[in-house]
């Protein structure tokens, strides 16, 4: 009897230990992803009624942008996403334009470089095939504001200078390999410096025409969008991203626009 009790007691202890491990300890993110802890994102632009702060739950983010090699594997398994098979509702004529053929990226699309010329729909379909999703604007911006040494990169002058430097340089026609840039505070790299990235809710950015100010918004085309305003005029890159997203349509395929995936934890 006593022995039994002992065994059961040990089993119970083990079970409690397992439970607490699952419930309390940070679950390691899936391979190739980094864990972004919960926090708060202050939107760069917001309308009068928008929340000042958006809380971001902890999530997993791909450490690197999706590469041509990754995407090749995807289109091999999903022929409807090959260049000749794609439906034009979901991708414009530039889809995978830099590839040599349906299954041959060729010299202009190095296997280690981020995949670009992909539409929002294609990026979503890829993410879904991996059991992942695209990050939201809030998640992406929140993860991307970290410098290599601190989570609040807005207080890191050197980091801000580097990012700004990249935003003022035109993207090369042939992109470099992923993973060469410095890892940020969370272990993700290339959020700046290589390509722009799709986000799930890119179409929430509402600027039309002249995006240098909200004078470009023609009030009759939008409902309640007249009161957009920048929160941090110093943050030019965030402003650029906002303007860029607002110019996108979901079928656009652009030479310097790639993506990475996220996942709930």
């Amino acid at each position, binding site marked *: 009897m006593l022995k039994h009790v002992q065994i*059961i007691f040990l*089993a119970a202890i083990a079970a409690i230990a397992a439970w607490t491990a*699952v419930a309390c300890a940070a679950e390691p993110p899936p391979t190739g992803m980094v864990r972004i802890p919960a926090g708060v994102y202050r939107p760069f632009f917001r*309308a009068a009624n928008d929340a000042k702060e958006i809380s971001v739950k902890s999530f997993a983010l791909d450490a690197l942008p999706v590469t041509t090699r990754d995407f090749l594997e995807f289109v091999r398994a999903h022929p409807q996403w090959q260049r000749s098979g794609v439906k034009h*509702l979901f991708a414009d004529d530039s889809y995978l334009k830099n590839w040599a053929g349906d299954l041959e990226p060729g010299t202009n699309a190095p296997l280690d470089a981020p995949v670009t010329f992909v539409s929002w729909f294609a990026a*979503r379909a890829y993410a879904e095939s991996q059991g992942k999703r695209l990050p939201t604007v809030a998640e992406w911006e929140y993860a991307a504001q970290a410098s290599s040494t601190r989570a609040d990169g807005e207080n890191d002058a050197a980091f801000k200078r580097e990012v700004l430097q990249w935003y003022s340089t035109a993207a090369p026609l042939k992109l470099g390999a992923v993973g060469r840039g410095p890892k940020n505070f969370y272990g993700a790299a290339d959020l700046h410096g290589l390509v722009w990235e799709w986000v799930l*809710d890119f179409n929430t950015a*509402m600027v039309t025409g002249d995006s240098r100010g909200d004078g470009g918004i023609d009030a*009759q*085309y939008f409902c309640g969008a007249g009161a957009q305003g920048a929160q941090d005029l110093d943050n030019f890159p965030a402003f650029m991203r906002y303007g860029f997203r607002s110019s996108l349509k979901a079928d656009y395929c652009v030479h310097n626009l790639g993506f990475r995936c996220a996942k709930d934890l």
Partner: protein
Amino acid sequence: MKRILYSIAALLLVSAKLPAEEPNTNEVRRSCCIAAAAPAEPLTDKSLYQISSSWTNDAGQAIQLSSLRGRPQIVVMFFASCQLTCPLIVSQVKQFEATLPEETRAKIGFTLVSFDSIRDTQDALKNYRAGHSLSGDNWTLLNGSPDGVLDLAAVLGVKFKQDAQGQFSHSNLITLLNSDGEIVQQFAGLNLNKEQLGVEIEKLIKD
């Protein structure tokens, strides 16, 4: 005694498994994009009806967008609690409908799709239909999942964003689809060009 201890251990083991299963509860993000094998004529390359998400109308029926196929549709994204431009847009489309001869009216459809997956339930949409006297024959009111709404807004080029009060900022866009679900023309802003819309519809019906 032994039995009690066993059951405690069993309970502990069960509860040990629970937290790991929890993340599945927010499995909202479903497939986008590719419709299952289409019946009869395949959908065209640019047909919006390739979006495979599932929707619920105000009669509580689950439908696919492809069920709108067969006649031209005038599509508006809106939300029922909107106090600003949605009522204006809907009333413009209604006024337009009233200008049409009966035989034309019978050959086209009007579809209102809500941004508000949460509040625009079947009942809310039913009330909206009654409140705005939208005829049952050719007006379709739809509620969808957040992912479905995101997909449809993306193909229509509608931008939208929910603010902290739960109101939506959104593009004011009226879209004319042909009977295959391809975009024929879009009318932006609050002043619907009814003459032009009428001309386009007549063209579609003749084809």
